[in-house]
């Protein structure tokens, strides 16, 4: 059990979130317990509005649980014990900065990088950004402005920005949700190789079951709102996984099983409400 190498990165214990007060309170997340070990790639799937983003925000310290506790890197989230990178569906690049400067933004803010920002922004930090951009195939666009890039390219830049300060925990909220199927599958490959290289802990929220199966080492399925985790399983297809893999029988079977679980959890709630 207490293997030295498996440390807990994120732990939600009986964490629940509700918005509003009194009779108008909306339960966004039921008491949830979830433990993510360091180096795991966890995908969180479930119907929309079930509280996936809420869990992500809890882990990122952007939201405090109404009840229960959230421990990240061994401390309460607000203590910022772990360096965190985040990326959302909307790439939110700043239009007045080049891609290089956009990706560098975390280094301007996160300790200890920020102390040397002025000194290193044209040397060490620049090289670091360029290395990342090369990994995602954007090297030629370092000096372009965001409006010159396509949606898929912006999302690659967004991943770079989330990774540039070498976070130990990466929180991704439907980062590929707005992309077309081909671009999305391309980015799965990019994401996988980035992860194989850096092995951070990743929590990925998605509604794409194929995406979850392709990327994750573990998949958690949530029920409809107010959400709770109804299924939690490992995914041990060998790496690196390919798009061809997603057409094989065992992958398809996993997909179908997940779909069933989500559909069932939805009809359950409908019956409860009736």
């Amino acid at each position, binding site marked *: 059990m207490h293997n030295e190498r498996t440390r807990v990165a994120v732990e939600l214990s009986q964490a629940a979130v509700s918005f509003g007060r009194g009779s108008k309170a909306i339960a966004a997340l039921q008491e949830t317990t979830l433990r993510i070990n360091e180096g795991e790639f966890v995908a969180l799937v479930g119907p929309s509005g079930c509280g996936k983003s809420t869990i992500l925000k809890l882990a990122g310290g952007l939201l405090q649980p109404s009840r229960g506790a959230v421990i990240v890197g061994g401390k309460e989230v607000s203590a910022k014990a772990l360096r965190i990178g985040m990326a959302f569906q909307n790439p939110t690049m*700043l239009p*007045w900065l080049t891609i290089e400067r956009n990706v560098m933004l975390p280094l301007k*803010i996160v300790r200890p990088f920020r102390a040397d920002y002025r000194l290193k922004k044209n040397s060490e930090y620049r090289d670091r950004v360029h290395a990342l951009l090369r990994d995602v195939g954007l090297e030629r666009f370092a000096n372009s*402005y965001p409006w010159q890039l396509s949606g898929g390219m912006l999302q690659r830049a967004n991943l770079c*920005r989330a990774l540039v300060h070498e976070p130990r925990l990466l929180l991704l909220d439907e980062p590929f949700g707005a992309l077309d199927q081909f671009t999305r599958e391309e980015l799965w490959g990019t994401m996988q190789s980035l992860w194989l290289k850096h092995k951070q802990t990743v929590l990925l929220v998605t509604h794409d079951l194929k995406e979850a199966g392709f990327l994750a080492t573990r998949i958690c399925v949530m029920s409809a709102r107010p959400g709770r985790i109804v299924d939690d399983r490992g995914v041990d297809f060998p790496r690196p996984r390919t798009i061809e893999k997603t057409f094989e029988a065992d992958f398809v079977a996993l997909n179908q099983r997940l779909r069933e679980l989500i559909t069932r959890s939805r009809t359950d709630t409908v019956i409860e409400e009736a």
Partner: protein
Amino acid sequence: MTYELRRRLSAAFLIFGFFLLWEVLCLSMQVSDLVLPRPTQVMETLISRFGVLWPHIVQTLWTTMSGFLLGVTVGVLIGAGIGISRTAYDTLYPLLIGFSSIPKVAVVPIFVLWFGSGSVPAILTALVMCFFPIVVNIATGLATTEPELEDVLKSLGASKLDILWNVGLPRTMPFFFASLKIAVTFAFVGSVLSETVASNKGIGNVMMTASSNFDVPLVFAGLFILAMLGMLLYVAFSFVERRVTGWATRREDFTAI
């Protein structure tokens, strides 16, 4: 280049055509210069009386610019306050809306009552005319940060000041410069308004006096001067705006700079 040149030429041609039409219509219909002087008459007045007009131009220009600068300062401070703090927004916004719906002619007598006639009421009227668009634009610019970006930065441990400095302020710049262009023309309206009511200096006063003397060409000369000054300042601020915030307006031009 050719397209740009053609655009400019056609614009210049149309403006010239407008004055030509005015001249021709006045001549052919024999309009008295007591009603509507011809552009050539106005120009003639402008040139022959320039020596007398010049001190008034300077007067109007300096009261306008002083009022404008004060208005920008006040506007930026209030706008930043409203954009950053929810409480400031809730308390100040209703007050400002109320204030901005007061016709500014009504406040001139109050300023005269407090400070006597002359430059001070002109500056103050320019100020109250021009600060409101700045407040609104600064506040809007600061308030439109995407929530996702704010989350990304907060998860990095960014302070409110970090976010303001790296995102809020740069994003506000286009709004700010757009509002400067409008504010400077409003400041003109304010100072001239005050001069017509309570001053013995400035273009507003010149026009008032000229109109009571039935010196209609001089009234129109005053109008011309105001229009020219307004345009000049507008162009100046547009130029600065394009230099500073090209990323928000003309992307193609911006890369060319």
